[in-house]
């Protein structure tokens, strides 16, 4: 278990909207250990999505240092960032972002085909419990099932880091719970480092680490010694 697997040091991100400059990340500092299930919470506009974007290589920071698995990604060019995304990051979107024109299996294959070391698409789908729906198109799947495909797509790449952007945001309570359970299982059983963003602080007890953000800053970074299984959490 590597300590400080993910490190943010004084990360700034500014957006210019006309004459106003918004500090979306205003000196963010935190670290996450390998294998941890980290939850970033905060209200809308607290800067958690910015942090996730920077961490996922989707966006770049203006200032500061970000280290993932010993690699500084804060100054990578667009091509290196693409490689970083390709090999190190698994991304789970709030709206699943499946390609509607591809079956579940093909959506997973979309990710695996560009990775050297990857899981078999079927295995990945099996591991998220979609044994029977592999050849279905997204429109033929429920939201939870789509999110499972999305998770399978992220996991199939064998990423170092699994990033989830409000994965339950578009799901109903129970389905959301199931998804969270799946993520927790993946983290605990496979040792996957998971960073999850949510505005729902109710789910923080299930996390190994809870990072609380407000106004582009980390206001607390608490390690939860005794995370609860998701079943025991109600909100």
């Amino acid at each position, binding site marked *: 278990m590597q300590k400080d697997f993910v490190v943010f040091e004084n990360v700034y991100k500014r957006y210019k909207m006309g004459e106003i400059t918004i500090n979306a990340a205003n000196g963010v500092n935190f670290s996450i250990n390998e294998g941890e299930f980290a939850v970033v919470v905060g209200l809308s506009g607290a800067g958690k999505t910015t942090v996730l974007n920077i961490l996922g290589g*989707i*966006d770049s920071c203006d200032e500061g240092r970000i280290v993932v698995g010993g690699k500084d990604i804060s100054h990578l060019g667009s091509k290196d960032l*693409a490689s970083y995304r390709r090999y190190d990051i698994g991304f789970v979107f709030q709206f699943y972002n499946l390609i*509607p024109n591809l079956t579940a299996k093909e959506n997973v294959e979309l990710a695996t085909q560009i990775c050297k070391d990857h899981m078999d698409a079927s295995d990945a789908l099996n591991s998220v419990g979609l044994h029977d729906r592999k050849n279905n198109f997204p429109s033929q799947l429920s939201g939870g099932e789509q999110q499972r495909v999305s998770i399978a797509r992220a996991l199939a790449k064998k990423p170092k880091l699994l990033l989830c952007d409000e994965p339950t945001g578009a799901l109903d309570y129970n389905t959301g719970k199931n998804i969270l359970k799946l993520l927790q299982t993946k983290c605990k059983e496979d040792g996957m480092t998971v960073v999850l963003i949510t505005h729902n602080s109710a789910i923080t007890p299930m996390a190994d680490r809870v990072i609380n953000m407000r106004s582009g800053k980390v206001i607390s970074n608490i390690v939860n010694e005794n995370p609860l299984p998701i079943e025991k959490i109600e909100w």
Partner: protein
Amino acid sequence: MKALTKNIFREIKNTKSRFFSILAIIALSTGFFSGVKASSPSMIETGRSYITDKNLMDIRLVSTVGFDDDDIKAIKEMEDTVDVMPGYSADLIRTENNIDSVIKVLSLPEKTDTNNKLINETILIDGRFPENDGECVIEDYFARTKGFGIGKEIIFNEKIQGNNTTDIIKQLNYKIVGIVNTPLFFTYQRGSTTVGDGTISFFIMLPSDQFVTERYTNVYVTTKASDPDIDPLTDEYKDIIKSQKDDYKLLADERIKVFNETTLADAKKELADAEKEFKEKKQEAEEKLADGEKKLHDGEQEMADKLSEGYKKIADAEKELNDGKEQLADGQKKYADGIEEAKNKLADAQTQYNDGLTKYTKGKLEYDTEISKAQAQLDKAQSEFDIQYSLFFGTTKPDAENKLNLMKTAIDICNEAIDKAEKRINELETAIEKYTEPPEEIDELHALIDEYREKINEYQKQYNSGIQQLSDGEQKLNEAKAQLDEAHNTFEQKKAEGLAKLTDAQIQLDTAKSQLDIGKLEYETALTTGMLEMQAAQTKISEGEKELEKGKAELENQKAEGLKQLKEAREKLATGKAEAKEKLGDAENKLNDAKDKIESLNDADWYIFERDDNPGYSGLVEDAQRVDNVAAVFPVFFLLIAALVCLTTMSRMVEERRTEIGTLKALGYSNFKIVSKYLVYSAVASVIGSAVGAVAGIFTLPFIILDTYSMMYCLPASKLVIDTSSLALSAGTGILCTCTVSVITCLGELRQKPASLMRPKAPKPGKRILLEYITPLWNNMNFTSKVTFRNIFRYKARFLMTVIGVAGCTALIIGGLGLKDSLSVIAPLQYEEITIFDQIYALKNEGTSQQQAYLMSQFHADKRFSETALVSQNWTTVSYNNDNNKINLRYIIAEKHDESEKFFILRDRITHEKVALDDSGIIINERLSQVTGITKGEMLNMTINDVPYSFKVSGITENYAGNYIYMTPSFYEENTGKKLKYNLVYTQLTEEGKKDERDIANDWMKKDEILTVSLIHEQLEGILSTLDSLDVIVLVLVICAAMLAVVVLYNLTNINISERVREIATIKVLGFYNMETANYIYRENIILTLTGALIGLPLGNVFVSFVVEAIQMDMVMFPKYVTPISFFYGFALTILFSLFVNFIMFFRMKKISMVESLKSIE
């Protein structure tokens, strides 16, 4: 501003690329359509205003006998006539650099008392109008294209078809002082002529006073048809003119009658008088001639007699002379013989004398020698004796006596010595007894006495012999004396003897000598005498000869003189004859001229021409029509594609704004308000687009096209006519299409409940495509290929739109290029494959068949022709559609119709099978069949020389330029009952001959039988140059098509990308590199473009047929022909544009932010 209005403008601002692509497409199609559509009316208007402004004549009258003022007056008085302007025209020849060219010389329009306005007013382009004699103005087209302008001088040939040029115009030299255009000539065409090679190279204009012709050659008339209310380019005008022409025809008949009764009658009377006079003169001259001839004959006889007499005399003299000569020869011979004999004799005598002389000389010599010898011996003996004598007595005897004395002395001495010695001895012997000792001295004295004794003996002996010798010598001397005396006597005797002999010989010799001398003298005398005699004879003979020569010379002189006199007489007669003949000939010529004139006057005719007969006049309308036809096809197609693309774009936009529509609806906005947003959006885009396009199109395309045509036309600056109806049509179509589409799509969306509208539209479900069921293929496909194919078939509408749009662009490009291909193939097809003869010679008069046969034999004899054929070619009118429509065309009857394929090919256009021409019917060309609707086996109605016939069509042949009917001579004669007359000769040149085509034409034009020559080659060049002008139009088409292609492809790709922004962002998040992302999208684009371009190929082919069909004319069949290279260009250009668009789109795709993927679905 209301929120909704703001929304509209913000929408436009936010979707600039969409807005502008709609705008651009509408602008392009509207601009193209209105621009091309405006070209044709602009061309026509330019021509029309030219006609009206310059007061172009409506009717042009030409008379074979010219017009006089009465004619002009009569024309002026016609009811239809508005103005009349008489004028002159002549076709003259100029030879420069050995090339003949025909120049049309026209009179400048001038104001006369019969017209209020100038008719055919000329436009001065440069310089000034002529002010002095010897100045002219030249046409603009020639000056412009050949650089033959102001300051150049034109020098006409002195003769023109046997007439003096100065009988037509004042001078031969004219200096160009200005450049003009006249409405009489719209185009570069100058019409044909009967002089030179039949083509007019350019025209010049002179003031009327430069013409010296008595009667006007042309009369220009404006009629009531040129009323400003009547459009001169319509059928209405044509109909009016047609009816007016009939009226003028009536007037013409009337005026011809008047002419025949006055001018012609006068001329005839004059002719009769002249004929009478001529006859009289002829007779007189003939009589005189006969007289002269008789005199000459007598003279000849007399001279012959005299001559024979003279010759006889000469012959006699010659005989005498010859006799004399003979005698002389004999005498000469005899003389020679005598001389010879005498010579011989003389020679003998000489020889004898010489011998005698020799002998004598020899004898004398011998005698002299002997004498001298004997004398010498004698002398010698005498001298020897003398010597011996003197020696003996002088020397020897005394010497001997001295010696003898000496000897005696010596003997005495010795005896003394002996005595002495003996005395001693005695003494001594006495002494001996005294002395017993010295005995020796005694001994010595004894010895000495002995010695002396001995010596005395010796001397005694010698003395005795000397005495002996002396007596011997004395004896010998006495003997010699005796001998000498004897010899002397003998010598004297011999000498006397010899002398006697010599004298005898001398005497003999002298006698011979004198005899010889006498002989010699005799011989010489004889020689001289003979010589003299002979010389005398010779002199006589030469005298005789001289006399003879003299006589001969005299005779010759007399003969020459006689001959000279005769010759002179003959010459005089000949001159007289020639003079008489010339005079008669002149008179006869004059008479014939007068006859011809009267004959031509007899055939006096007026030709009535209208504007359509002006060369190139109707071409303008035809060209305008062609441009209009192109405009009818191309832009419509263009507009269709534009509408299609707008439709796609707008429907896509409405779909994108689904949530917004739902929200607005939920907020309670009326459907109208909601729809109005999209309506306004599309209306603004399309109205602005139409406006921009219309302005750009109208102010560029007509000028480009008109400029192109103005190269061929001699028109003033182009007039722009905005065809409002087509402008409205094109703008309207664009606006309507775009707006209707947006309204319909929007309304379609609005039919749904707001709630469902607010929910994101369920993405179109993924579907298995047909290809997946072909498992082996599908499973082996690359993953991205699978995605690509599934995407292609998922959005069928987009697929269709793209393919149709791209195919349309390809087709448009091919259409433009194919149009050019089709047009440019006409000339080579027509003139290299169908009408393969090179020249047409029009015969002046059809003549008898023998005359024609003779002419044809001349044609055959000209080795520059490889083939020649007699052809009858005449105009006929074909009526069709129940006689409602008529078409004028020519029928061709070749004498050797079975060999017609040497001149023109009758074949099926598609199969190229020969169409047989036989007596079963006529063959018509394909276009005629298309126009009339009459096909093989049907009957064609045609009128030949006002007689209607109906012939069966037995075949249809390929032909492009012009309409023709072909038949056999026997078919013609059988069916019309008329004798066929041939009026043309078709010729084909050899390879050699082709180089001097023009020279050959000029050579033949000099023949009286030939009226005109048409060179197919030059016709071809004319047609080709016309087609060149289409290049610009084709270029315009291709550029517009290319622009459309770019815009369409851009728009479609743009839609494709904006529809899939989320998808693109997602795969970027998944770690796709930029190129991989681009390929993910482009693969589809490329396949769609390729599919579209491929479909565009046959579509283009069809499109070309469509365009070609649209521009077909009654007289010309445009073949549809697209070269492979045009297909290639169409395809390649589309692909190129597509790649270009993809290249631009790559940057847009790169810009798509991955953050898009995190956004919720709208």
